[in-house]
């Protein structure tokens, strides 16, 4: 409660958290900070290789397919838009779960956690479809069928980075889903209700939003640039 914090509070004097959070949440934040550097390093490596290449494939030409649609879509990037929408949506349901946790509403938490898990699984399925599709087009680690935007032969690094980075992101989504499932089970068992707080949901939420955050950057780097 913000009102409970007295003005002029001496945060750093010891005996209390200078951040007004318990250590688990703090640790999660610092972990996410370090994970940001893992992803940052991947994306920056991708940028470096792209900057050191004379040309690069055009995402608008590569990402043109949609499940159920034969051939190419009239507009590119339709499928990835759907994936982005799903992930942002699941972020929203996660916040709603956290909000319900604050209100100590067990069924609210369980409901929204459930939707978040569904969102995560939907995203993973989309990714699986996209990977399969690209694989059948001939793209994989070490193989790249797409030409550069100027019609020259491209190196394999377009697909190398694409599969590595989206794969690493997908791995994070997957672990997020697993964490969320565990949280859902614990919620339903009433573990948090007994504890009197839903801080674990908040920590899982932080991780989940981080996955969304990373996707925002992956989206920009691979599909827009």
């Amino acid at each position, binding site marked *: 409660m913000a009102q409970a914090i007295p003005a002029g509070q001496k*945060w750093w004097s010891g005996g209390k958290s200078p951040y007004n959070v318990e250590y688990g949440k703090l640790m999660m934040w610092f972990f996410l900070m370090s994970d940001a550097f893992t992803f940052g390093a991947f994306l920056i490596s991708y940028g470096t290789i792209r900057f050191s290449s004379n040309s690069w494939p055009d995402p608008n030409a590569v990402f043109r397919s949609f499940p159920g649609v034969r051939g190419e879509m009239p507009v590119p990037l339709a499928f990835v838009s759907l994936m982005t929408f799903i992930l942002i949506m699941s972020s929203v349901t996660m*916040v709603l779960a956290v*909000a319900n946790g604050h209100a100590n509403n067990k069924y609210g938490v369980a409901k929204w956690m459930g939707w978040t898990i569904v969102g995560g699984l939907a995203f993973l399925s989309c990714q699986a479809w996209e990977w399969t599709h690209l694989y059948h087009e001939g793209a994989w680690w070490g193989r790249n069928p797409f030409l550069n935007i100027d019609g020259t032969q491209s190196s394999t690094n377009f697909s190398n980075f694409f599969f590595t980075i989206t794969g690493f992101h997908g791995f994070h989504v997957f672990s997020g889903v697993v964490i969320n499932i565990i949280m859902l089970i614990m919620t339903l068992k009433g573990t948090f209700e007994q504890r009197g*707080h839903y801080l674990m949901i908040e920590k899982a939420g932080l991780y989940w939003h981080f996955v969304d955050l990373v996707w*925002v950057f992956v989206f*920009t780097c691979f599909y827009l640039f």
Partner: protein
Amino acid sequence: MEHIQANPAVAHGQGQNFDTKAIWRTFRILLIITVVELILAIGYYEIDFSNKHFVKHVLNGIFVILTLTKAFYIIAEFMHLGHEIKNLILTLAMPSLLFIWFIIAFLWDGNSYKNLRNNYDPYQKEQSLKKVEAKKPGAAE
């Protein structure tokens, strides 16, 4: 985690309660930005500009700004950092600044590597400028 004992103060102690309206507002902002990004990306693809490279650079700049805006909203609202106390915000914001030099130096050197190769390895440059026929999808298998 298990160590924290049941303490009613804890559950309500973490900052403020969530405002459901604000959550949906953030969602709308994120959605709109994403749609704008897509329109720009597809628009660039559909329209034939005379100075393509310049337009692409401007667009990329816009994408960076929009992406950072989205990141800001996710962190501030969804991750609730905007509602934490200033100490935490600053502690997390400061290390992120390291990315600036991280990015500049890496990309700068990547670009320089390209120029060096083009200057000192003419064969490589010639190869990289040769147009080739597109393979049929699935041909690589």
